[in-house]
Each structure stands twice: as structure tokens, then as C-alpha cells.
């Protein structure tokens, strides 16, 4: 399966297993979503289980919260992460707070799926990576898959989780593990082992990172599309880098990170989001707090620039292998 099919399969499985799961969002019903993630689900499970909503992200999330309070497990789609902001208050002040403020009396067991990231010439309002702001909100979990296998397993885990989960989908790798070499043809997922996705139910636990490449000299922390960029960069740079796919940003798998950096003594953090106050800042802070005495070089951050995502300059903006390799080299030099 490619990542879209894996995500579709996760929802199909959960719709089948749990009558309290239902899916709604803009264009997700009859049409099956602008990225086809819900294709066929309405036809198979019925209009009340997968349906279109008005274009009101705030309403979509609010309604999901109310349904969660009733006892359902809504899975909503925000068509692009760039359009999640109208729902920000309901996410931050409500979904994230219900359990705490009611001392467990009410909860919001909901999942918010949304495609994020650039590299598709979507311009500044179809390319953003807002993950950092959600990691700043206590009460929310933030999950980002990098492969079809993880996407399905993590999404099922998110749907079954009793806390609200922001599930960010790296749209650039829906169809193939794009590694940042935009001048080369992209491999389809079918050529990638992680596209071997079971049809049935399985989970990938939230809060656990994956070491996707073992290495001794340097640790690369990445998630989503950037995992593949990091892997390609390690090859390009011919550096024995350990690449960690975080998979869940919050709660973070700090042990896997610490273990690796204590071993390598060097760390490069890669994300597509704007640099200042991006999640890379938190990762950098945590690594230096936990591994200070093991660090042999400054922690490097390779990120999107602190500008909107400019339509004509995708590849100057996108933190591709060239920039990651440079950062790896800098980290190795010291």
C-alpha cells in the first residue's frame, strides 16, 4: 500500500471494528477526500459514518469534542494543516483541556488527521508544518508517520487512544518516499519494504521512535518526509549516521534519542517547519539537557526558513539533502 491506502485502511479497519468510530470533514464523504484518504468509506460503511461537513474547521473540531464527550471516537480530517487555525481555540482550550479541567469526568478521544508540509507547489497556504505549536499545548498528542506501515499502525493507535491526537500526514510522501532529490524520479512506495502493510488490525504504539538507520558517528533526528531526506543525506555524505524517526513528537521517546546521542556525541535535527520556535528547538534543548557531557559538536538544526513557503522557490526553501549534508559535515568537523 502507499501511505494514502494505508491511512484509508486504518480507518476502514476501525469503522468495521468499532461502531463508535465515525469520520467527517470537508469533502471526505461521497468524494473520498481531496487526497482520496477516505475513498470508498462512505459507500462501504454508510453516510452517517463518513460524511461531508460545512467548511468550518472550528465547528468540525467542536462537534468532534461533543461527540467524544458522548462516547464516540470521531476521526476528523482538516483538509490542509494550513487550515487548522480556525479550529485552534477548540483544540487548545477545549480538546486539550477537557480531561484535566473535569478531573477525568469528560474526555475528548478524538483524532484530527491533516496533511502537512510542502514540496507539492501548493504555495504558502498548502505547505505549512504547524506541528510545533501543538507540542506546546499540554493535553494534546502529536503524531507524524513516515511510512505506510507506520501510518496505518499509528493511526489505529491514535484512534484508540483516549486523548486527543493531532495526526499530521506528510502529504509529499503519500505516494512515494520522496528523499529531497527533486531532480530525480521518486520511487513508488511499492519498492519500499514499509509499503508491505497488513490488511487487518495492528497498531504501532504512540510515544516510540524508530531507529531507521544505525550509525556510530552522528545522530539525525527527523520525522515525516524528512526521515527520507535524512536517510538519503547519510548516503550522500557517506557518514555513519544513526537516523531516528521520531514518529510521535509528543509524548517524545526521549530514551531512544538520549541513547543514540550519548553514543554518537553529535546531533543534527531536521524539520521542514520554520526554524524559530520549531520543534527542533525543543529537541535541541532536550538533547543538550540530557547529553551535555557527551556532545562533541554543536547540535545542528536544518529547517525551513523563517518565511512563508514561497511558490516559485520550493526547492530553495525545502531543507533538502544538500543542506542536511552540509550540517552533517559541520557536525563532524568539530
Amino acid at each position, binding site marked *: 500500500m502507499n501511505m494514502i491506502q494505508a491511512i484509508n485502511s486504518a480507518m476502514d479497519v476501525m469503522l468495521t471494528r468499532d461502531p463508535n468510530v*465515525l469520520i467527517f470533514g470537508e469533502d471526505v464523504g461521497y468524494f473520498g477526500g481531496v487526497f482520496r484518504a477516505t475513498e470508498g468509506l462512505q459507500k462501504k460503511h454508510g453516510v*452517517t459514518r463518513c460524511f461531508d*461537513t*460545512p467548511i*468550518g474547521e*472550528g*465547528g468540525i473540531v*467542536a*462537534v*468532534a*469534542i*461533543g*461527540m467524544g*464527550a*458522548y*462516547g*464516540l471516537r470521531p476521526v476528523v480530517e482538516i483538509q490542509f494543516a494550513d487550515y487548522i487555525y*480556525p479550529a485552534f*481555540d*477548540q483544540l487548545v*482550550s*477545549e480538546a486539550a*483541556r*477537557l*480531561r*484535566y*479541567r*473535569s*478531573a*477525568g*469526568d*469528560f*474526555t475528548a478521544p478524538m483524532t484530527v488527521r491533516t496533511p502537512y508540509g510542502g514540496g507539492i507547489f501548493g504555495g504558502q497556504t498548502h505547505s505549512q508544518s504547524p506541528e510545533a505549536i501543538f507540542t506546546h499545548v*499540554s*493535553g494534546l*498528542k502529536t503524531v507524524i508517520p513516515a511510512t505506510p506501515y507506520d501510518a496505518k499502525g499509528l493511526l489505529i493507535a491514535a484512534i484508540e*487512544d*483516549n*486523548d486527543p491526537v493531532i495526526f499530521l500526514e506528510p502529504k509529499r510522501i503519500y505516494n512515494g518516499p520522496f528523499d529531497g532529490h527533486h531532480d530525480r524520479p521518486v520511487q513508488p512506495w511499492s519498492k519500499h519494504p514499509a509499503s508491505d502493510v497488513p490488511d487487518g488490525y495492528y497498531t504501532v504504539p504512540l*510515544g516510540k521512535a524508530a531507529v531507521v538507520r544505525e550509525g556510530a558517528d552522528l545522530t539525525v533526528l527527523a520525522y515525516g518526509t524528512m526521515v527520507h531526506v535524512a536517510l538519503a543525506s547519510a548516503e550522500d555524505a557517506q557518514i555513519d549516521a544513526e537516523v531516528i524517526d521520531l514518529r510521535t513528537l*509528543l*509524548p*517524545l521517546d*526521549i530514551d531512544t534519542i538520549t541513547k543514540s546521542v550519548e553514543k554518537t556525541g553529535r546531533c543534527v535535527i531536521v524539520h521542514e517547519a520554520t526554524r524559530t520556535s520549531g520543534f527542533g528547538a525543543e529537541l535541541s534543548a532536550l538533547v543538550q539537557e540530557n547529553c551535555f557531557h557527551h556532545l562533541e559538536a554543536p547540535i545542528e538544526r536544518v529547517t525551513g526558513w523563517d518565511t512563508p513557503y514561497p511558490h516559485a522557490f520550493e526547492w530553495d526553501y525545502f531543507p533538502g539533502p544538500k543542506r542536511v549534508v552540509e550540517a552533517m559535515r559541520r557536525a563532524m568537523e568539530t
Partner: protein
Amino acid sequence: MKNRKPLSLRIPEPEARPGDRPDFSGMQVPEAGIVRRPDPDAPDHEIRDLAYSLIRVLDDNGQAVGPWNPRLDPETLRRGLRVMMLTRAYDDRMYRAQRQGKTSFYMKCTGEEACSIAAAFALDRDDMCFPSYRQQGILIARDYPLVTMMCQVYSNECDPLKGRQLPIMYSSKKDSFFTISGNLGTQFPQAVGWAMASAYKGDDRIAASWIGDGTTAEGDFHQALNFASVYRAPVILNVVNNQWAISSFQGIAGGEETTFASRAIGYGLPGLRVDGNDFLAVYAATEWAATRARDNQGATLIELYTYRVEGHSTSDDPSRYRPSDEGKAWPLGDPIDRLKTHLIALGEWSEERHEQTQKDVVEQVRAANKEAESHGVLGGDKKPSVKTMFEDVYEEMPWHLRRQRQQLGV
């Protein structure tokens, strides 16, 4: 060169400010009983007039008149009266407690008791309520323990919310009372979602929510009405128009140009405008909307026309922005007085019984407060264990919170 006249910016102003004599001359108060009562399944476009009238049952002599008279038995009326009196006594006591420094904050619903209590009476106990901070009457109507409410207000060792919430932000799932939010209006579309869930499950419970006139300006108000309309959600959406939003009068929320009930029209929903100080009218309107919702006809918007007699909260001083005697001048009177007069007119009540009941509720509140204070007040040392501060952020505590709890050494 065009010669067009210059535009000018219009800022709404209330009729009266401090120093002025209260002025409600602009307010039309139709006679009780004159507004028609269509069947609860009437098509919305045939009943738009109800958004511009004012449904009233109790006339000036305390008689219940007209088609909206819910014909409640005296026992129910007496219970309603008692709950309103108890709520007011509770408010008075808690207000004083705040003034005495026993807690940080309090909000009264004085003069608005019927808006929550008559509605609670018309709903079933398991209909889910999504209130604002001024519907404590619902909990009291549902016999939620006063002591527990007080413990929440005091953030003490028996506070069911473990000292986490601002006073009056109650929550009780078992009483179908949703956790109150400090963020205005968020509960309105959530109530719609709950109602959609109930419909989705083939349940028969409906939802109801309350917001204030000022809060109608939030985007969530629009989300609630639109989703309710599109999915025909079984929900009652109440706007408690008490004329004020802290210091700004309802005209700043758009109430000068038309009625809040009429907001329903643009969504194809029925809008009822109701005398919020008339227990019977509030009961009848709620019952009408509940019947409609249970019949799968969808949502109703109810504007409860009332007046915020006290300050917005203990942090507020209304004499800074409105005539202090405005409350006395309010044409729709007081909900407790009016129901009392009605019961007496029915021969089902007397001044003596009223006085006695007043004594009883004050005593009941006093006793409850004594017990509540024995569990501690804000700032005292009888409070939930500090440890609990790190709990319930997530179902399971992640490592970073565990580490932070250790750092605090608790």
C-alpha cells in the same frame, strides 16, 4: 470630482449611563398570553414571527394565561420556586465567601434563575446540558449537593475538580452537566456535536446549551447554528440575553438592530423569544423545543430575555458603566416574585410559607457551607494533594510530566 457626502462611523450607545435615570422606554413588553403557540412540528418558515414577539405566560396579576401556559401542577411550581430561592441563597452566600477572602472569584445568576431552572425542569434529567457559568441553577434543580458545589468554589480537599478550575466552573457527567469552560461559547457547537452523536446512536436524549448575549458574537455561535441546521441536531440552543456583557450592553453584540432569536431565521431554524423572568414561559418554550427535537425536527434557538441584576462577577463594579438602579427598573420583574405571586394567586402559596421557605433555604445553605468550609477554603492547607496537579493531563502520565513532578519533589 465626485461630490458624495462623507461617511461616518457609528458606535452603539446604551440608553443610560451612571447618573442617568434608567430608561427602558424603548423596550416593548407585549401582554402575557397574546403570542400564538404553533405545533412543535411547524415548519420554521411559518413561525418566523415568534423570533420578534415575546412569549409570556404570567401576567401582572400573577395569572397564567394564553396558549403557552404549560399547566404545571402546584407541586412542581412550588419545587421550581424553592430551587430558585435556594439558588439565590447559594449565590448570596458564595458571594459573601469571596468577599471574606475564602475564594478568589464568584459569579451570581441573580434575576436569571428561571432561565436555567425552568429549562432544567422541562428537560429530562439525562438530557445533556452544556451551560455557561451562569446556569448553576441546573445543578441545583438536579439536586446536585450544594456542599460539593461549595467545595469546588473553595478548591478544597473535597473539590471534585481537584482545585484545578476557577470557582463556579462545575462539572458533573452523572448529572448530565458538561464541564464549564472559561472560554466563551465553545460549548455551543460542542452541544450540537453531542446531539449529533445521540442521533447517530439512535438514542433518545437531547442536548441543551446556554450562552450569553455577548457570547453570540463568537464564531462558535455560527458553527453551532450551522451544524445544527445542516444535520438537524436534536439540541436546544439558548441565548440568555441579560442585556449586558461585562460593561458592554447588548447593542454591542448586535442586539440593537434586531433580536437574538432572529439569528435562527438565517439557518432555517425556529427562533423563540421568551420572557426569561417568567418561569412558566421558559418552561413552555423549552418543552416546545424539546418535543420538536425528540421528534427529529432538529434544533431551536431560544432567546431568554432577562436582566443581569448583579455585577458580572466579583471582579466587576457595574456602577461604573450603568445606572445602579437599572435592575429595579427592569420591566419584566423578578422570576422568584412572579412565580410566588402566581402560586399565591392560585391559592397554593402564602407569604408565611414563602418566608418559612426563605428561612429554610438560607439555613440549608448555611449548613452546607459550614460543612464545605470544614474541608477547607482557598489558600488554606486543606486542599487536594499537589501531586494531583500533574494528573489527568493525559490518561497516562508521560515521562516528561513524571520528571517534572519529581523536580517539584511531590
